[in-house]
């Protein structure tokens, strides 16, 4: 089963970290990713650049605008996807995400499969 992990960051928290803490966090996240890569569970991991565009229908036209501007302090800063045996394992991975200890948050979304059971 595949799960998408959305990682919420908080810029205020990041920007207030002491250099040593920041290095520790970056090192821990790299090691975390590497461990998942080695276990053969990591499907992909990317950071998001906070320069989103919004694409919507306005009246009868498709309009692209800057934004959405983030009103809340927390927003999705990166994601990773895993392919694991069950939800328990997905949650175990989520709980061990190092960023949590630094004030981030994480959402675990099961991904749809491409087939279907007997109907």
């Amino acid at each position, binding site marked *: 089963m595949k799960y998408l992990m959305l990682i919420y960051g908080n810029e205020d928290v990041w920007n207030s970290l002491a250099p040593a803490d920041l290095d520790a966090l970056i090192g821990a996240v790299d090691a975390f990713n590497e461990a998942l890569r080695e276990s*053969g*569970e990591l499907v992909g991991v990317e950071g998001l650049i906070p320069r989103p565009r919004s694409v919507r229908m306005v009246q009868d036209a498709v309009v692209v605008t800057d934004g959405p501007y983030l009103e809340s302090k927390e927003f999705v800063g990166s994601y990773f996807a895993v*392919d694991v*045996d069950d939800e328990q394992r997905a949650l175990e991975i989520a709980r061990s995400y190092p960023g949590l200890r630094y004030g981030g948050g994480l959402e675990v979304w099961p991904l*749809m499969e*491409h087939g279907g059971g*007997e*109907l």
Partner: protein
Amino acid sequence: MTQDERVEDVLRSLAPQVLGILVHRHRDVHGYSDFARCEDAVQEALIAAADAWPRTGVPEHPLGWLSTVAARRYVDLVRADSARERRERAVLDATPPDALVAPAPDEEPVRDDLLELLLLCCHPALTASSQLALTLRAVGGLTTAEIAAACLVPEKTMGQRISRAKQRLREVGARFEPPPEHEYEQRLHVVLHVLYLMFNEGYSTSAGSELRRADLTRPALHLVRRLHERLPESGEIAGLLALMVLTEARSQARTGPGGTLVPLAEQDRSRWDSAAIAEGVDLITQTLATRPLGPYQVQAAIAAVHDEAPSTEATDWPQILALFDVLERLAPNPVVTLNRAVAVGMVRGPNEGLALIGELESGVLAGSHRLLAVRAHLLEQAGDRTAAATTFQEAARMAGSRPEQRFLLRRAAANRTT
């Protein structure tokens, strides 16, 4: 069948034999062999054959060709792996103890190590997804790229998963030999479950991935068939084979235009494979009469009743319900109860079916799209279209796959129109 497909078939059926030969030849005095290295060598031999044979034709002794090439690759791998100062020793290690009396490649006795290989690949120390991946590669003869494509993960991820699985086997000291008597039944059960998952994974796939479907259902069917030949006395292997054959027989009718799922009730039964149905029905009838009963046999019997019916209405539902009663006693689980509720609905009316699934509302299936879909189906049958539409919609929201979601949305819409 094209030449490429023929080559592929030959390779897949010979892969476990080549691996068995290599693992046997390179056992040390304690019976241990470097399974991981043997497997890598076989994999390289398979790739070499897949490259050469479509151009040159399949050689006269394909097994000899493959085991000779694999043995050479094995030696290469040992050499490459070894530190310079240990090279001499390594070359010695790579020489089989019986090298001087080893038979010529085309005289290699045909061994049947399929069962031992399957037991090793489905070792309980491995996670389910690793068991599946390793079985596909070591026994199914698929390349890492093919397995990755079939499981929809990057090739690198799959490569890592397979090498981690092999490393794990080494760590736990897994040996290439039958497990002790008291573990045998349980270990065989794991093997059958992995093959069942492999088949299901392929079977349940539809939209736009025809390739993926065949990639998994074919090796699963092939392996269970070979296992049945090796252990014809096992009722559950025969049952699993019959179940797969009877399920595969309906596969052509199961996908509509654009990869939509066609449910059993709406399938064009003239597109079912009658030869396969006859084979499956024969097999399960014979097995049920002569072997101790098991869950795969009962599931095959249920599939047989469906396959022999000309339509949903003409299906022998009391028979299906009786079989579900047996299955629930043999292997109680909420999914079986849920399926039984559909049969209860057909035999004793939708309200009885609804009462039965009421009991599941507090269990592990609570809120799942499967439970909601069956509830909606029974509500529709009871004539409560408004509740059916809402429930189908809820089921669609929780659906685990896109084709299922589309199907459920369609049913919701159908119940909203007057």
